[in-house]
């Protein structure tokens, strides 16, 4: 097991290096003078020159690449955002927790709903329940997130006025992110404040803000988890040990939740881990829709503003996270399935 982890970790190094190289060379694809493009049409020659110097655009590409990697490895220097004029690491340190918070909230909705829908449609196969559950899943994968988001906003914010349309925190809340935010995830901060002082206002505001984007973001992973749960459950339910359990008179609920669920959980866990990709992809749109200041929104903004260093470092960061997630999914798979562990 340990050897497997180490081997996979070592293997990720060339993958990530390749990623940095691709991202790096992508700047070369920019039509025209990259420094000029980044500086914008109305930039002064000084600004263009500054960018050229700062990014070493006047040197050969391998020198640039070498310096980029060197700074990355020795100082963890991700560079400077051109648009925000701040270190990229700074921007990431606020954007990433926001995305993690939102993604986690979406998974908290998607996982139980998806698993229950999936189990229900497998157990009641070919009945109305199955049809309803599979149609829900189908609608979930076919729904454009941005449309769902608009409808949610229209119904719950504008018509009913229950929930806010954007942002992470109300102005009325006595909450200063710079001072009061410990974790940079506001729901968690709110919870901590509530536990410490008994004032739950911050927590309430934070939850109210996260509900709509989290629901919008949860649809696709929910649908995929439910489809996967259904098919792996059907596979397990068809096996001999289930028939044996039923034959010897185990209660039907026991058969489903103990015998079948344990065996199907393997695939459910793996698929849920791999939803990280879907969730992040969805976060790009959801965050932009709900003005949620996370990594997705920052990336879209940096693309529109031609902030290439930000695009490079942001993507590199996402790439690292993905390599890590895939690794974790593999390791979990091994832990849950003794056959895989032995094989390694």
């Amino acid at each position: 097991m340990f050897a497997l982890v180490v081997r996979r970790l070592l293997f990720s190094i060339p993958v990530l290096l390749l990623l940095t190289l691709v991202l790096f060379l992508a700047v070369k694809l920019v039509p025209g003078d990259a420094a000029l493009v980044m500086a914008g049409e109305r930039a002064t020659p000084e600004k263009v020159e500054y960018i050229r110097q700062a990014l070493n655009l006047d040197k050969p590409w391998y020198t640039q690449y070498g310096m980029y990697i060197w700074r990355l490895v020795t100082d963890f220097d991700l560079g400077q955002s051109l648009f925000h004029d701040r270190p990229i690491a700074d921007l990431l340190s606020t954007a990433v927790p926001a995305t993690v918070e939102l993604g986690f909230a979406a998974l908290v909705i998607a996982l139980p709903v998806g698993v229950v829908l999936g189990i229900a449609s497998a157990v009641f196969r070919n009945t109305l329940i199955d049809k309803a559950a599979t149609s829900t899943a189908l609608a979930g994968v076919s729904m454009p997130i941005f449309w769902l988001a608009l409808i949610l906003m229209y119904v719950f914010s504008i018509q009913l006025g229950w929930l806010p349309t954007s942002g992470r925190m109300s102005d009325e809340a006595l909450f200063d992110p710079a001072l009061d935010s410990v974790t940079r995830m506001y729901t968690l901060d709110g919870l901590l404040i509530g536990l410490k002082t008994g004032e739950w206002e911050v927590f309430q505001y934070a939850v109210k803000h996260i509900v709509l984007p989290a629901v919008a973001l949860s649809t696709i992973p929910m649908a995929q988890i439910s489809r996967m749960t259904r098919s792996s459950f059907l596979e397990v339910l068809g096996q001999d040990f289930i028939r044996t359990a039923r034959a010897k008179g185990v209660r039907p609920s026991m058969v489903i939740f103990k015998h079948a669920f344990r065996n199907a959980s393997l695939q459910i866990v793996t698929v849920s881990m791999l939803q990280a990709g879907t969730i992040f992809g969805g976060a790009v749109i959801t965050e932009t829709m709900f003005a949620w200041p996370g990594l997705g929104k920052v990336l879209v903004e940096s693309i529109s503003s031609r902030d290439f260093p930000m695009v490079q470092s942001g993507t590199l960061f996402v790439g690292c996270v993905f390599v890590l997630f895939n690794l974790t999914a593999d390791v979990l798979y091994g832990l849950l399935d003794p056959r895989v562990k032995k094989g390694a």
Partner: protein
Amino acid sequence: MLHSVNARSPWVRTWTEIRGNKLAFLSFGIVVATALIAVFAPWLAPHSPEAMQLVEGRLLPPFFMEGGNTSHVLGTDATGRDVLSRLIYGSRVSLCIGIVPVFFGCLIGIPVGLAAGYLGGKVDEALMRVTDILLAFPSILLALIIVAFLGQGIFNLMIAVGLASAPAFARIVRSAVLSERNREYVASAESLGSATPRIVWRHIFPNITSSLIVLFTINFASALLEAAGLSFLGLGVKPPTAEWGAMLADGKNYFYDGWWMIVFPGIAIFLVVMSLNILGDSLRDALDPRAAKR
């Protein structure tokens, strides 16, 4: 005799399956109807999609609401453009940015998959490593990066979505080739001295067509969604071009005054994507039993 040969063709089997399944047939009908609407847009649209009415006729509601009229059946948008006409013309761009990338993805993915599967060894190893990396990446992010570096615009958008869909084709073609290449018919073709490209093209490729039809349909759905999403973010078509995702983006600031601006384009995207997904799912069950089990 001729009939039995035809019956085995994946295209015929696809058609038989669509005709036999009510839901699939309905979905197929919706997709075909949308395609026809796109083709005949100039004859079907009551107004020009870009004709504005800034003085009178901004934000007219659909005909069934008070203040609406039958000249603008689905109302007008914030600059007085007819929503129905924009929807009809929008189907052209929307279907295009859904289907062109998938062809593009096939163009790259299929040869890569064929090469990896048939040649095996180091070629396979190298190609699949790259594919794995690309697959692990959220495809919308991949598309975003490509748009970022190539610049915004509809053509770059299609390249971006297409490149992002290529690895899925490479994967599926490779695994199909792997399962076909040790069959006897391949061995016999080899022993008869057929050249490798000929074996791949004449013998293996026809046997994976049904997997490809399924993948193509499902990818068409996801590419359409993704492209609409990118245009919604303002990274695709430029105004005033009518496109469903861009129409939603136009409408999002007119919640209070014009719900029809966001409801109808959304329904259009949802219907087409859902139809393609239903079609893909039922075809997979019928044509590709191995994949259906997964």
